[in-house]
């Protein structure tokens, strides 16, 4: 696992950072000048038609999010491994349970499998997670086996949070959390964005709200 600083610069090189994609969507393709064709001109969910002068941003989480997720997985794995190791050691040498010698390889195998899963899962999550913010709203797509697509119209966003845990902070990442008035899906989370992109997305969403308020 490389130090976080090395990965902070990885995303632009790989060309898949949200900023790069956003530029491709909004500046590169020229889509920023207006909404997507067809239905975008129609009213969405009974609300007035979205304004044309809103940028289209799309992209994926930062590549460093993979490392961040692996670090988070490592922390969880270490907690689990130390707890199960301590329990096993107690059973083996202090309590001297008969089943303990047989359980040790099984526990080791399970921990190894869990570690492999924690290592292999983040790139897959990253590969399938993408977002697109257009004049209508924010769409988030994720999952490989279970494909999910969530769409939040701009008019329905009540407020926007940026959330960054200790590991995310180390990698300069933040999660964008949208709140709608709903209860089940009231919180819609877009993880692994660089602070810059997250703030840009937030500003875009909030500017839309301010325009509507005016």
């Amino acid at each position: 696992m490389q130090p976080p600083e090395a990965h902070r610069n990885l995303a632009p090189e790989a060309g898949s950072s949200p900023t790069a994609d956003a530029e491709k969507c909004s500046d590169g393709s020229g889509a920023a000048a207006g909404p997507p064709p067809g239905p975008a001109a129609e009213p969405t969910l009974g609300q007035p038609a979205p304004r044309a002068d809103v940028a289209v941003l799309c992209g994926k989480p930062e590549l460093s999010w993979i490392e961040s997720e692996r670090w988070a997985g490592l922390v969880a794995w270490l907690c689990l491994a130390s707890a199960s190791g301590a329990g096993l050691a107690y059973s083996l040498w202090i309590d001297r349970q008969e089943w303990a010698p047989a359980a040790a390889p099984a526990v080791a195998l399970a921990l190894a499998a869990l570690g492999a899963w924690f290592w292999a899962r983040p790139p897959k999550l990253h590969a399938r997670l993408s977002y697109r913010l257009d004049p209508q709203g924010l769409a988030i797509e994720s999952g490989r086996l279970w494909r999910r697509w969530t769409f939040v119209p701009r008019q329905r966003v009540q407020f926007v949070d940026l959330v960054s845990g200790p590991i995310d902070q180390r990698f300069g990442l933040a999660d964008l959390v949208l709140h709608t008035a709903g209860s089940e899906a009231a919180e819609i989370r877009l993880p692994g964005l660089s602070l810059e992109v997250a703030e840009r997305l937030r500003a875009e969403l909030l500017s839309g709200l301010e325009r509507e308020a005016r």
Partner: protein
Amino acid sequence: MRPPGARRAHGASLALRWIAALRPWLLPLLALLVFSIGDRERLVWMWLLLPTLLHAALDHWSRHYALEPGGLWLREGLLERKERHIQSARVLHISREQPALARLLGLWELRIETDSGGPPEAVLRYVSSAESERIAQHLGLSSGGVQAPEGLPEQRTLSLRELLYLGLFGGRGWALAFGLWAVANEFDLLERLPLERFEIAVEGTHFDLGLRHLWLLLALLGLVKLLALLDVCLRHGGYSLRPLGGRVEFQSGLLTRRQTRLDPRRIQRAAWRAGPLDRRLARLSLWVDAAGGEGGREEAEAAFGGALVPTLRAADRARLEAWLGLPPAPPESAWRAAAPGLLRREALESALLAALLTALSSWAYGPFGLGLLLFLLPFFGAYLRALKRRHGFAFGPQGLWLRRGVWRSETIYLPRQRIQSARLIEGPWSRRFGLLAIAFDSAHAGGIGAIASLPGITPEAAREILGELGLLGAAPDWIRPRDDRLGQPQADAARA
């Protein structure tokens, strides 16, 4: 700054709040009293309850409210003081609850909710009946009028016959009775039934055994239904639904009385539900979601005790819809039927289940076990026929209609303006049959279940629904026709 006319809750409410605060400690308190017999020194532990009582008293003392022009002012907190202004125009509904003890004192707990979601924005424990009426009137001035149409009584109540129907035929009493019977069977309780006393048992015969089973089942069912009837009487006793100014006033509850004033124009979602017996007897129930509350079933039950209309003749449905301002359901021809892929998937799953059950039965009873197929096949056939009829969606002028459920069928109406977000979910098993699920979240997803969702629709149907809602432009690549499938950046470039 405290506005003129600011006041605290009713003085007697302190006693009620103390009782409410002590309720969680009831069992430890009883245990302490029992163990203190003969040793009064142990009662010194009752001082531990003092902080709870003190907290309730301080909370009561620090809460103030005042009626302002155009809204309500509230202040709470001793160390961290919080002031809140609620505008009348933003009040979605006002509900009030009266526990049995509060009823003796003529006091109500008043809950005021806006459409921001979360818990009620204001809870006043407890105010007098006249004061709660004054607050409700002050906050309800901005509403328009709801008039009962011709032919529908101004006030809808539940007759004794309807209460009996809900108690005896509603719910899942049969399933519970069968479950208890299985447990009793497991613990050999059947052997202990004193049938000989009634001279109807013939010792040691299959007839005797069957009779014991039947008796136990009937006794359990009777017990379960008696409890259900009691529950229905407690929950729906004193039920009434009547127009009141711009709102509809709902009232229910025998011991704890709930009263909710709901603005019908702010209904987030409405669902008509009917079980198998309801369908046979042409009856149904109406469940509505209004924004506010914490989104759980308990919150919805706190507001309406479950359904807004627990049972109703199907013939009265159209009149009630007109009264509540709900649009009528689209005609049968407007409904899109269940997708063939869904029927194929359900048929395959049913066949697998039938094969598994028959194999288990054959393993236990030999060739006789194969007879189970004779029962299962018609059952699954009927299930597939019902699924074809009772699954689908339709578009209305103001919103989306979803229909689902085979055993307990449900017709959900989602006003277009109230949909907060849309989701598509496609699992690996459904993908094999070309199916996916669509789900919508409204401003308050409590009461009816989780989100309004329709599983087992085709990508074409999903496109149609998203197009109708004006969301097709943002639709994901995997529901587009194969020719139209481009990566998102390429799609953007193509659009540009």
